[in-house]
């Protein structure tokens, strides 16, 4: 029998060995069995347990060369695997989760098609669909996080209440189907509900900076995984069309009415699960992409500003310019927030921070120019719901980016901390949520549902 002291040493050896990328717990278990048997054998020959341990370790050989051999045999292990093989102890647990996720994804897919069972057609009854499409996926996603985080009844109550109130508002309001408020409400409803999902995601940490930061990270990764799944779905649909066409069967209605909506709904759940399962396994992609695009966007904006000054051309206020600049600000904010989410708060200011500041300031300038042009135009043409919503969003984003630039500069000049910046961003989430709520619930009232 080995002594507690030897047990401790074996434990240390195991941890040390496991740290190598090419070695997995099963390999270590196999070698540990060997080590123990060797120790027992040596002890029988009269060695003390300490001596036996030392000799056994020595005979096992140098861990570096052993793991090099393993790496040669398992080169794939050096690539972190997307679908991780769970260890024995976690296998049961992860299978339950996988079944749950699959079930929820199917449920989301069914819910999105449920109205057709009651004879509602998307082209004929689009008013119904526009009002309710957000309620097919997002409550299920919230449910998944409630289940996963084992949230208390109080939380479940609040989250459920938020969905119910939103559903009542959307379906009770007497929208004019030809007006613009119905579109605005339908567009902003998922944003509101997304923050409800965020509360379920962060659980009891939903008011804390770290909880909200995790939710921001999750949102970015989800977007990337979703885009990848959509890409795969597109390839699959394309092949389906082609091979069925070759036998003279046209399946484009099936794809349009079933495959795409069901796939799009189910993929949200699957992608969320992937983000959850992979967050500690593989590098987050969003910060990598932002690192790639931050300098490019900064460069484009700088060239744009210089060209504008050089040519003396003002911004031509066409119909969609305001929306375009809103989107630009969203992208810049995304670039900023995701590079922030991956930055170590302790790291000293460096080159990438200078790029961030250039990006922020040039985006602010570009937007200020556009906003000036648009504001003067609106005073001539009058206020419509769409213009007010777009203008409001622009101002909200502008305020955020402006104050972020100030905080960033302060941090850069060592007058502030990075944590202040994080705190500002995470608290500002409440502003987006409130504005989206105003657009969903107050705009229809203010503009007479038109």
């Amino acid at each position: 029998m080995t002594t507690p002291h030897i047990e401790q040493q074996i434990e240390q050896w195991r941890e040390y060995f496991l740290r190598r990328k090419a070695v997995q717990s099963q390999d270590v278990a196999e070698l540990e069995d060997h080590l123990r048997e060797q120790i027992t054998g040596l002890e029988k020959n009269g060695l003390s347990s300490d001596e036996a341990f030392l000799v056994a370790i020595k005979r096992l050989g140098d861990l570096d060369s052993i793991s090099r051999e393993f790496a040669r045999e398992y080169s794939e292990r050096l690539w972190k695997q997307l679908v991780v093989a769970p260890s024995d102890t976690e296998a049961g647990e992860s299978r339950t989760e996988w079944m749950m996720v699959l079930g929820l994804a199917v449920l989301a897919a069914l819910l999105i098609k449920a109205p057709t069972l009651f004879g509602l057609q998307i082209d004929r009854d689009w008013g119904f669909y526009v009002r309710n499409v957000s309620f097919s996926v997002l409550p299920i996603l919230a449910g998944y996080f409630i289940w996963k985080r084992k949230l208390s009844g109080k939380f479940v109550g609040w989250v459920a209440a938020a969905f119910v109130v939103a559903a009542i508002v959307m379906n009770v309001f007497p929208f004019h189907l030809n007006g613009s408020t119905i579109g605005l409400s339908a567009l902003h409803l998922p944003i509101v509900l997304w923050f409800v999902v965020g509360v379920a995601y962060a659980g009891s940490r939903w008011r804390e900076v770290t909880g909200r930061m995790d939710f921001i990270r999750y949102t970015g990764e989800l977007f990337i995984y979703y885009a990848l799944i959509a890409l795969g779905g597109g390839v699959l649909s394309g092949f389906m069309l082609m091979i069925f066409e070759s036998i003279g069967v046209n399946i484009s209605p099936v794809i349009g009415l079933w495959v795409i909506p069901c796939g799009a709904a189910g993929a949200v759940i699957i992608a969320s699960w992937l983000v959850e399962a992979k967050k500690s396994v593989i590098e987050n992609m969003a910060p990598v992409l932002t690192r790639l695009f931050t300098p490019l966007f900064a460069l484009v904006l700088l060239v744009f500003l210089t060209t504008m000054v050089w040519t003396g051309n003002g911004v031509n206020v066409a119909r969609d310019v305001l929306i375009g600049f809103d989107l630009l600000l969203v992208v810049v904010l995304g670039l900023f927030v995701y590079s922030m989410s991956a930055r170590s708060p302790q790291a000293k200011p460096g080159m990438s921070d200078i790029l961030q500041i250039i990006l922020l300031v040039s985006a602010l300038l570009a937007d200020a120019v556009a906003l000036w042009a648009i504001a003067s135009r609106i005073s001539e043409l009058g206020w419509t719901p769409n213009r007010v919503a777009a203008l409001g969003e622009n101002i909200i984003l502008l305020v955020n980016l402006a104050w972020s630039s100030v905080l960033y500069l302060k941090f850069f000049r060592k007058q502030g901390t990075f944590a202040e910046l994080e705190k500002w961003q995470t608290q500002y989430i409440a502003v987006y949520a409130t504005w989206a709520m105003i657009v969903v619930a107050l705009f229809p009232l203010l503009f007479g549902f038109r």
Partner: protein
Amino acid sequence: MEINKDLIAASSTPIVLATLAKRESYGYAILKQVQDASGQHIEWTDGMLYPVLHRLERLGYIDGTWKDADSGRKRKYYRITSRGRKQLADELKQWRAVDATIRGILPAMTMQLSHRL
């Protein structure tokens, strides 16, 4: 006498397969059998056996399964497959050919050497 590294590496496959051709076994026991059979001439670094076993498993020459050992711990046992037997026969042929070549070139000297040993 110490056998050089290249020869050890080249001979590891037939030796492991030959050991497993007799009966199902696991890492530590394979090592002991090889040591005894070689008259202590072959001393592998213990840890290096496992990557070899895993390679043979991937090639389909042997089959590994986790079972409960007498010690109460889990232990991975390997047994040879029919593909492994074919591979073993093939490798043995190769070894005999190499051996025959050396003997054919230096019949007397090999005899002398083995006498002196």
